[in-house]
């Protein structure tokens, strides 16, 4: 039998999660060796390790009779062009072996071979699905910088922060890993279907679940441990008070990863989680450029900054720009405030939007875009 089949068999044993699988693997090394071990030794071992229960051994023996299912799965995976990356392979992510609950096998669809998961810097980005314009801008900038600094971006393919960062990364020619909660057969949420297609072409999608597993709610927190596990640092862009991103942050803490939170204004619902993390001792993401330079070990951006803060604004544009903050402002307010004529205000707003200072997030509502790339870094006092 092939090695891959043994690994699938290991996954198929009922009642055996990643933790128990890892304990067995520590003793026997590979799934193949485990399969060929005598039942007595397994029984002895399981009795010795407190974590195993009596029924685990029964399931272990029974599962060997049920290899048809694994064969079927293997054929399906082969037909779908899915790679099976197991512990015994060199390109298995080394950071996952450090975890007590790291998956022994991950399934990958896309370009796994070109990933620098074990050689280059890896950054995870997580955050809310209910993204604000501020979060969108930050996530997109992070994605772009990942591409420009050659950093692998890991995220969860969700709506909001995940998708925004990954889209931006691919758009700028970067490489990204999407970690799915479901099996690789599903594209969830459906609104990101375009992103799934792009990821298969330019990045890679991975999952620890069997191919056809549907996106069940309980799989998402479990998936989050892989996101933080793969990366050396995790950025939380926006998170509400109760957020899955905070679960990821907890995992990251257990796994000893660096946690960076994007600060928000107090009172902004989508920033409560981030600000809380900062209070708990997470790093603040202060200056994106410096952060990336540090993470990539002092390497340079492939493209220099092209935006120019000193871009001259017309006096009217300046007046309008000052009135627009991170909260949506209605155009009617701007008219009342400036007392200018509609056509003129509309023209100025359009110019500001096209210059990249503001965004019309809904008809007539404007927000200022953070000028993230141009924030000067404060000089530290001696």
């Amino acid at each position, binding site marked *: 039998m092939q090695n891959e089949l043994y690994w699938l068999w290991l996954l198929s044993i009922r009642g055996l999660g990643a933790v128990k699988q890892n304990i067995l693997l520590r003793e026997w090394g590979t799934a193949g060796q485990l399969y060929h071990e005598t039942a007595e030794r397994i029984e002895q071992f399981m009795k010795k390790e407190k974590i195993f229960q009596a029924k685990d051994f029964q399931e272990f023996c029974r599962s060997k009779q049920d290899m048809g299912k694994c064969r079927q799965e293997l054929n399906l995976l082969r037909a779908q062009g899915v790679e099976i990356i197991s512990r015994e392979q060199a390109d298995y992510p080394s950071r996952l072996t450090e975890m007590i609950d790291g998956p022994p096998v991950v399934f990958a669809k896309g370009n796994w071979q070109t990933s620098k998961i074990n050689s280059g810097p890896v950054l995870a980005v997580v955050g809310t699905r209910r993204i604000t314009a501020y979060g969108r801008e930050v996530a997109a900038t992070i994605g772009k910088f990942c591409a420009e600094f050659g950093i692998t971006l890991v995220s969860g393919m969700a709506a909001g922060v995940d998708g925004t960062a990954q889209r931006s990364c691919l758009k700028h020619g970067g490489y990204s890993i999407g970690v799915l909660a479901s099996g690789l057969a599903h594209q969830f949420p459906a609104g990101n279907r375009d992103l799934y297609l792009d990821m298969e072409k330019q990045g890679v999608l991975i999952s620890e679940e069997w191919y056809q597993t549907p996106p069940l709610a309980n799989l998402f927190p479990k998936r989050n441990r892989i996101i933080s596990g793969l990366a050396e640092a995790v950025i939380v862009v926006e998170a509400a008070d109760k957020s899955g991103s905070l679960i990821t942050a907890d995992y990251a803490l257990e796994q000893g990863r660096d946690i960076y939170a994007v600060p928000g204004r107090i009172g902004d619902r989508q920033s409560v989680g981030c600000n809380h993390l900062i209070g708990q001792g997470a790093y603040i993401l202060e200056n994106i450029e410096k952060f990336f330079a540090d993470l990539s070990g002092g390497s340079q951006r492939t493209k220099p900054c092209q935006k120019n803060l000193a871009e001259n604004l017309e006096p009217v544009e300046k007046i309008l720009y000052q009135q627009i903050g991170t909260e949506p402002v*209605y155009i009617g307010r701007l008219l009342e405030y400036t007392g200018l004529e*509609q*056509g003129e205000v*509309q023209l100025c707003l359009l110019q500001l939007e096209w210059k990249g200072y503001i965004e*019309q997030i*809904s008809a007539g*509502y404007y927000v200022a875009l953070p000028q993230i790339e141009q924030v000067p870094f404060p000089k530290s006092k001696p």
Partner: protein
Amino acid sequence: MYCSITTAGLCGIKGYPVNAEIDVAEGFPKLELVGLAHNSVKESVERVKTALKNTGYVFPYKRVTINLAPAQIRKYGSHYDLPIAVGILLASGQLEARQVQDNLLIGELSLNGEMVGVRGALAMVETARSRKLKRVILPIQNWQEVCFCDDIEIIPVSHFREVIAYLQQGRLGSETIELQKKIKHLSALQEGEEIGQILGISVNEGAVKKVDFADIKSQNVAKRAIAVAVAGMHHILLVGPPGTGKTMLAKAVPGLLPHLTREEMIEVTRVYSAAGKLLGKIPVITERMYRAPHHTITMAGLLGGGRPLLPGEISLTHKGVLFLDEFAEFPKVLLDTLRQPMEDKHIVLSRMNERADFPTDFLLIASMNPCPCGYYPDMERCRCSEYDIRRYHKKLSGPILDRIDIFVEVDRPALPSFQNVACEKPSQEYAGQIAAAQHIQKQRLHSENLLYNSEISTPLIEKYCQMDMAAAEILNGAYQRMKLSLRSYHRLMRLARTIADMEGKEKIEAKHMAEAFNYRVAYNKYFMK
């Protein structure tokens, strides 16, 4: 004895001549009514029998045959009472009449012989005119709606006895003579408003109770957008949280529109007459109509239909305002059926053996919430996920959105401006601006036989929508950035043309183009996601 009376039938909003042939012969007493009479016509016989008895005549105790020719078209309505009654009197020898052949007779009879108003009188009178008949005898209740028809003598009567008196001796009642004088006077007038005054229809009665822009606090952006929409007859969608005054804004629109011209009054009255909606308080349409059907409306109710074919809401708002509140709640299929009538300005309804062509030149004002809960983009209050919002927007199909030129968001007014009552501009001010803009359009498009910028066809756009360099730059920028379709590109030009016309500018300038772009941008940003 045989006789034939000329009357008319109604198909859609068009009349066609019908001959009521009556034969009274010796034989076993029996009555036959042939000529595909619908139940509403069959009942006519019972009314005629009683009305004749009550006016001192006898229904012949003989073999009576009535035929409504042409016999292959189904006849509906109660207006065959009068021709049948007169025909029976003639055929049974109870009446000696001169010049019956030159008259068109329509009218319903009550049991005591009084005349009752009928549906579709205007269309039938027009039939008589096109048939070169000399006069029309009709119920007095219908006199106002046919007052536009000159070059034919109208004889409004209130009782069957008056009809007999006229046919026998050529004698008219004093009331009839009075009304005929009024009709003559009216036919000389051109302005719809004047006609309404003479007919004694007050402005408010014709349409809904009007809202003035001065009554609506703040919302200057939405008001401006509506003014632009009305000026160029661009369809508009108002988006905003619940309770911000979208409905009030829509109700103010009829007050912004110019008065109906004489021709338009006739067109709209014809539709209402055929729909049987003129018999109540409003005998003739002199004002732009405003209708706001609920979103549970059926397809037949919206487009027209039924048996006989009656006009639907889109025709009842011909030359007026169709307000569709909660636009996204209308069934998608229903909204998609609006596509053709919006483009063609008329709708042809075909049923098995009926076919009707109704005019549908309406201004669409739609309103909806920005998301299912209604508060997006106020993230403090909105509880919808991005997916919810997208799904909500997906309820509107692309083609229908593509026919809407202006998307404008209505905001909850902030407190300070709300309390500042004095500064609201009244509708009249906007109306003046609109009238001026419409005048410019009329002058410019006169040679093309068009009225509004929204009607300019694509080949003519370059000719009529000229712009300066800065405006062209914005337009091209928009085309590239937003990946506009060529159709949207042209729509932007038409819209900018209207905005420039509101300032009386010869060429479209940058600010006009920017405003037009902002009205359209939401479409590409939100509905095309």
